[in-house]
């Protein structure tokens, strides 16, 4: 039976020289998603992904590739201290992503 929750997956850029702590951000999102009634975290290889979170350590956004975005209908890109190109302090990124995820 298919999950009725929105399926969210996370893909990292590779972290060569990150300006933000991607592991910390990833863990914070994992924690937030595990407590959410509408959202659930699935692996990047999943057959169904509704929203792809692309987490990149710097503005270069190496993880923001067409083939990654194509895995889901919608994607959100973190690139250093920006979320979808909107400047966002590191401490606020997790909350900004959750707000975007919940906004549909």
């Amino acid at each position, binding site marked *: 039976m298919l999950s009725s929750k929105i399926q969210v997956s996370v893909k990292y850029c590779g972290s060569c020289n*990150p300006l933000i702590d991607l592991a910390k951000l990833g863990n914070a999102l994992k924690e937030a998603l595990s407590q959410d009634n509408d959202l659930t975290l699935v692996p990047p290889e999943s057959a169904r992904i509704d929203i792809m979170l692309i987490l990149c350590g710097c503005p270069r*956004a190496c993880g923001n590739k067409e083939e990654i975005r194509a895995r889901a209908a919608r994607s959100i890109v973190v690139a250093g201290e920006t979320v979808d190109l909107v400047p966002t302090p590191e401490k606020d990124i997790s909350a900004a992503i959750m707000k975007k995820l919940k906004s549909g």
Partner: protein
Amino acid sequence: MIMGMIRGDEYRERLQRVKPEIYYLGEKIESVATHPAFLPHVNAVALTYDMAWAPEFEELLTTKSHLTGEKINIFTHIHHSTADLVQKVKALRALGQQTGSCFARCVGHDALNAIYSVTYDMDQKNGTEYHQRFLNFLKEVQAKDLFISGAMTDPKGDRSLSPSEQADPDQYLHVVEKRRDGIVVRGAKAHITGAVNALGHLVMPTTSMKEADADFAVCFYVPVDAPGLIHIFGRQTNDERKCGCLIDQGNVEYGIVGGEALVVFDDVFVPWEHVFMCGEYDFVFELVERFATAHRQNYGGCKVGLSDALIGATYALAEVQGTAKASHIRDKLVEMVHLAETLYCCSLACSCQGYALPAGNFMADPLLANVTKLNVTRHIYEIARLAQDIAGGILATLPSEIDWQDSRVGKYVDKYLKGVASVPAETRMRLLRLIEGMTCGTALVESMHGAGSPQAQKIMIMRRANWEHKKRLAQKLAKIRERPK
């Protein structure tokens, strides 16, 4: 005729039609397009137009406008990918190889790109209408293939004081009056490349500002012949050789630098349609950094093109002097190439690592762009030093072309300046003069201070280096917070 692309001749004709106020050596200049002091700079800019039409350079020097879809000269383009950024660097190298000197168009181009993104950001935050205003201007620049200068550096007065703290407020360009139809500005911009042979100036503030500096936070476009605009052209090393000499000029057609001037704004009126920032002091740093990044990105392109020509001159001279096969000469030539290509690597790297801004355009990686330019302040000097080393002392003692042509002593100059028997002395003289022009005096200072002095790059590197990340890496490796077993 393609909309958005003109040729060098049309650029020269445009220069003849405008009447800017220009002074040089106490003389008011009537025609920049024909005066020998300015002709080298006009020739270099004209080449940026003509090369765009040449099939062998077209791929680098033209692109498609994201606004109209029309084919345009690369110098009016807004970068929309890392490929665009890489193309700019390659175009600059190709141009530098052909001119052997600064060709001036990159500054205004970089200003266009910086202002494009910052006007968008200001509008997003404040609900202003700068970006649409700028887009209208940009369309005109692209349609006319307009050569505009980028004017950022203020005279600065007392460097320890902010703009609003100066004893003379005119040390930083500022707004003195706001009218219903526009603003009036006063002050000056220094070291402005291409100022005397551009068709207009894109003026930007030069340093980060606070609320008290709001009158100095101003960005606008002004045509070169606007009333109250005065240009005082700078002297260059051996600039008198432009008048009456040929061989002694070295770079006969294009000169040695971009042609810089002090531009005075003596209560110049700017209509609102050409004002792109007026009082938004909190966006000045963003504008300065984005412009500086774009401009510092360039230097591993254009200066490497110049270095290609200089290395070629040095290699050719070594052959003429019979030293080309000496192992130490070959080693020095290899070192020159190594240094030049290192700079090219830097410019390519900061371009490849470029990224999108909220407006959708791309900028180079700021940290790497500053590293590029800081390396230019060192490597170009070392390349020049090696060229002078290989050339020998004759670089500083060479008799003039006038004595070489003199009926009494010319035969001696010709006899004793000869190197290997198969090459005429004139060839050696021409190569020496080219190396002299490219390595002595003004040309080198451009590599040091153009696009900002070394300390400006270090400040940006300090800001951009990820210190906390580096510290965490060290702490993890040394297990700083773990108790010893």
